[in-house]
């Protein structure tokens, strides 16, 4: 579909991890054993990644917030700039009393954090960290991520309802309204890169941005004038989807005390916390994969075939995603919070029509290119 696709950048096939396992495990193992081992190992990797990420991100968030607000943030735990603060908090949350209200709807209350975290984990399987570093290279990767990450909403609603607290219920209902509305602009805003790359696979999109010595990112491509506004639209919708300020209405601490997780404590609260950072990272990673060249950076192609290639590619991808996570934090500590009806108005009156307009423009651009360059 795209004329700009360099011929070398055919989408890599298969999953690096399964290939690796297939090589390591003894021959003659049944297929399901391989698949099961792959699944367990992938889960362990993703869970460890999210746990470390959440810890790092909490620390980062507090430092970013602190320095933006002309203060230091945590400084006392650990030697250097309170680096162990998140670790200490994690331990504290683990050993804290796990309170379940007597009036709570116990099954829902207990299930909610699990649903929330497991959906966030599930979405990570379709995320390409490197050329082959993907758990499941789905043809419909983007579709899968959008679909699975919206199940989080169920968890939040369960938490809000199960807590038997009016503030929590408000948070849950806001989440339901907000996320359901923002699925539309989020999905639509992803259509622009999808049209450009002609694929719903993130791995494919990443491979297609490796041209120009690793700088053929969507935002630098011929369609940059579509890419930049469409990224702004995507980013706004992603903020709403991940309940980040200015769209943090489900928790909005100055109105709803702490929203849907008011009644949670200890490790259950930590699950919600990890989910928030996992979701932030997930959305940033999707943005990176589609707009900012996934794992590509200048010079990476020179290392092709060496041992360094895969780790550097993964590092580049994670760094770029974390930069976007930083931008999310930066936005959070700058702007006030929107009201629920304005969230709806923004979603339906601004983001959705603008996304449709961008889709029209992107489609016309592909058409113009096809006519002009005969691709």
């Amino acid at each position, binding site marked *: 579909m795209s004329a700009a696709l360099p011929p070398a950048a055919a989408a890599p096939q298969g999953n690096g991890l399964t290939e690796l396992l297939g090589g390591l495990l003894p021959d003659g193992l049944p297929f399901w054993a391989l698949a099961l081992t792959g699944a367990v190992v992938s889960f362990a990797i993703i869970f460890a990644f999210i746990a470390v990420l959440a810890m790092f991100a909490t620390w980062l968030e507090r430092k*970013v917030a*602190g*320095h*933006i*607000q*002309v*203060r*230091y943030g945590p*400084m006392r735990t650990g030697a250097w700039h309170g680096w162990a603060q998140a670790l200490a908090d994690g331990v504290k949350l683990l050993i804290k009393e796990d309170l379940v209200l007597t009036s709570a709807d116990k099954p829902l209350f207990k299930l909610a954090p699990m649903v929330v975290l497991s959906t966030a984990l599930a979405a990570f399987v379709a995320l390409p960290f490197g050329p082959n570093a993907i758990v499941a290279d789905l043809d419909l990767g983007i579709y899968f991520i959008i679909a699975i990450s919206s199940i989080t909403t169920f968890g939040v609603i369960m938490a809000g309802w199960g807590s038997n607290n009016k503030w929590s219920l408000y948070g849950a209902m806001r989440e339901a309204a907000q996320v359901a509305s923002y699925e539309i602009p989020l999905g639509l805003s992803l259509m622009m890169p999808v049209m450009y790359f002609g694929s719903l696979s993130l791995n494919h999109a990443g491979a297609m941005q490796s041209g120009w010595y690793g700088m053929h990112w969507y935002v630098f491509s011929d369609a940059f004038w579509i890419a930049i506004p469409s990224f*702004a639209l995507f980013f706004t919708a992603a903020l709403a989807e991940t309940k980040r300020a200015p769209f943090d209405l489900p928790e909005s601490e100055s109105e709803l005390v702490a929203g849907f997780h008011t009644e949670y404590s200890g490790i259950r609260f930590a699950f919600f916390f990890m989910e928030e950072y996992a979701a932030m990272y997930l959305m940033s990673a999707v943005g990176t994969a589609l707009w900012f060249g996934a794992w590509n950076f200048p010079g990476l192609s020179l290392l092709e075939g060496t041992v360094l290639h895969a780790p550097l590619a993964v590092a580049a991808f994670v760094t770029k995603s974390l930069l976007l996570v930083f931008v999310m934090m*930066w*936005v959070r*500590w*700058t*702007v006030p919070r929107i009201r629920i009806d304005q969230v709806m108005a923004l979603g339906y009156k*601004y983001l959705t029509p603008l996304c449709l307009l961008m889709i029209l423009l992107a489609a016309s651009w592909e058409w113009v290119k096809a006519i002009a360059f005969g691709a």
Partner: protein
Amino acid sequence: MATLQEPAAPASDRSYWGNVWHAVKSTAVGMGITFRYLWTKPFTTQYPDERLPVDGRYRGIHYLEQDLCIYCQACAKACPVDCIDMGAQRHGKELEWEFFSIDYQKCMFCELCVYPCPKDCIHMGEQYSLVTEDKSDFLLELTSWQGLTEEQKLRIAEAEAAKAAKKAAAAKAKAAKEAAEAAAEPAEPEEGKE
């Protein structure tokens, strides 16, 4: 944009693209400000490690110049919350201090106790953090000694000795006078002459 002069006309552009433009612009301006501060030195101090110096007039925990105090209770009477309590025995000019305490659960550091003091002996100090796990620790004792010091005892002894000596001298003088009077009795008519 911000101006110290009031803007001339109310601005309320609520058109569709006006809203979009205002949202994008104001968010960008705000993010510019926050980004600038991300790299400036924080304003805060790391409290327990570094402390800001307090000014000379700072109203912290009191200190008492006990040797000047005359136990007049003026400060206790001036206190709006009755947090000053004191007790002492007088031995002539010397004071045998029992206690001079301020209850910092009540004290509101208003400095009203300082002004009526005739000897200017109670002051507000520079210490401010009174951190404790026990409420009874807030009842601070300001005296540096209780009872009588050796010096005071000495002075009291001296004073008593002086008093005794004076008494003795007076008695002596009286006796002498009486003796003199007795001796001078015959001379009385002479006085009468005068």
